């Protein structure tokens, strides 16, 4: 028998025991899944997007099922920083798994203040800066849409924290690689992509949009090919690690992202369909490595062969 392959990986200063994280907004605050899976087996937990003040989110209807996916317009409903620290941290700090907090603000000052306040909390291993939520009017994706504004937010956050910074990118842009380079220059330690793709659905009886927010973000297997292409492009454009997100349902999907150049992956919508999805992916990656007699996961990261000279 081959020895257990090494799946440890360093993502811009984040030490993970395996490259599988939970995607923000699809795993609550971790505790929701504690009955079902051993949270300490996860590479990292990224909690629901957090703002300084509690946020109500969008009115219902917030979810529409689509073919091979779903649209959501939750609108970053969350308990706010204070309730998060008081109510959620005590449980999370007992885990050995690194905890990342996904943050968003309406202004870059709000992002900076959140980062400063989280910087003091030892239980938090890193910050994921969400500049890509399509479902809020101010902030969010508005910053992520342009290299300049994206970099400004990242610089503001960077100046307030020494914790590893992941910057989460939006696919709803013309050139995602350009944004990635811009946030890298502004001090990001890694980038995660993709957030959801803006979409909509219409009720033909009432001729009204199905979502109260009119548009929402598409996630699930329907977006995987797009996410994969973007990860591949970005991985070639930046030196910092890339975290692949989008439609990963199983280990095969995750391996595609790793081969395309992602150093780690996040599992999102799959958690709703199979709450064990993260563990299945971890186990599946390990089996693959054993089967192929690969002793270290880093050997497959970015191992895509294209027979094509990429300029």
């Amino acid at each position: 028998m081959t020895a257990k392959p090494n799946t440890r990986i360093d993502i811009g200063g984040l030490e993970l025991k395996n490259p599988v994280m939970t995607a923000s907004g699809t795993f609550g605050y971790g505790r929701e899944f504690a009955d079902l899976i051993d949270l300490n087996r996860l590479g990292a937990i990224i909690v629901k997007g957090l703002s300084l003040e509690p946020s109500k989110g969008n009115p219902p209807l917030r979810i529409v099922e689509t073919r091979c996916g779903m649209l959501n317009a939750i609108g970053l409903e969350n308990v706010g920083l204070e309730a998060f620290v008081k109510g959620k941290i005590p449980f999370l700090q007992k885990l050995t798994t690194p905890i990342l907090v996904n943050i968003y603000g309406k202004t870059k000052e709000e992002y900076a203040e959140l980062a400063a306040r989280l910087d003091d909390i030892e239980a938090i291993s890193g910050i994921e800066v969400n500049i890509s939520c399509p479902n809020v009017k101010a902030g969010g994706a508005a910053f992520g849409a342009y290299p300049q504004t994206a970099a400004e937010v990242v610089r503001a956050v960077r100046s307030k924290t020494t914790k590893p910074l992941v910057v989460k990118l939006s696919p709803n842009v013309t050139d995602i690689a350009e944004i990635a380079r811009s946030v890298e220059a502004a001090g990001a330690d890694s980038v995660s992509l993709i957030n959801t793709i803006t979409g909509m659905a219409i009720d033909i009886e009432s001729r009204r949009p199905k979502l109260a927010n009119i548009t929402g973000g598409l996630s699930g297997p329907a977006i995987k090919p797009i996410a994969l292409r973007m990860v591949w492009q970005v991985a070639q454009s930046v030196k910092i690690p890339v975290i692949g997100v989008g439609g990963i349902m199983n280990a095969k999907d995750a391996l595609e992202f790793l081969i395309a150049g992602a150093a780690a992956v996040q599992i999102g919508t799959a958690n709703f369909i199979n709450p064990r999805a993260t563990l299945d992916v971890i186990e599946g990656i390990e089996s693959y490595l054993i089967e192929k007699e690969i002793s270290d996961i880093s050997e497959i990261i970015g191992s895509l062969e294209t027979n094509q000279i990429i300029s």
Partner: protein
Amino acid sequence: MFQENVQILWNKKIGPSYYCIGLTCHEGYGMAKPGQFIMLRLPAKTAPFLRRPFSIHRIITTDDRATGIELLYKVVGDGTDKLSRCRQGDSADILGPLGNGFSVFDNYQRIAIVAGGIGVAPMLFLAIALQTKGVDLSKCTVFLGGNSTDDLLCRDDFNRLGIRTHVTTDDGSAGDQCFVTHPLEMALEKNRADIIYACGPMEMLKCVVGIAAKHKIPCQISIETIMACGMGACLGCAVEKKDDASIYMHACMDGPVFEADALKFN
């Protein structure tokens, strides 16, 4: 809460588009409360994409241990259609028991249970739980409403428990031709109830809640929303709170059973 791959014990057609399905389950379902639900998915099916929520209709016990659950469902779309085609021995993936159920107390005497259409699904479990609690069901009435006689389910089950049923239909094919809330109101005017439990279409629930408020009777209702996860992870199941516009409640965690005065109806 358990996620498990279970066997289908039976899947019986009990009406034009109604089915009753039995599933094996974890022994832990012995602790389930009426009003709680499960999220079900058929393995190896790529569509529908999301799990589907169903109330627990009855706990199947063997030697006082929970060995299965029964669901009562109506075929309304792709997911329930595929479910109706499953046979004994097929497998299903279930996540549950989920949510908050009905509160059941042994000091209740007069109880009104109101069910519209498939809303009857959690009510048999409720009646059984009341009986197990020691409530004398002879003063309990179930008000069953439906479009037509085919939509009036479980009458025999309730009668076997010693519960009176009062039926109404929209088309007059059984019972009085009126909304189910009409006989409820008449009954309450004669004799106050200690509690009203209701499950059914939103319009019906709104009316029941109004009646309960008018008579100042405690009332618990079970509602349906679209759900992606059923366990508090997606925040997709937001419902409006009556006296507080600053936050939403969530049907899968705070409900699906709510105190009648907690919800805002549009």
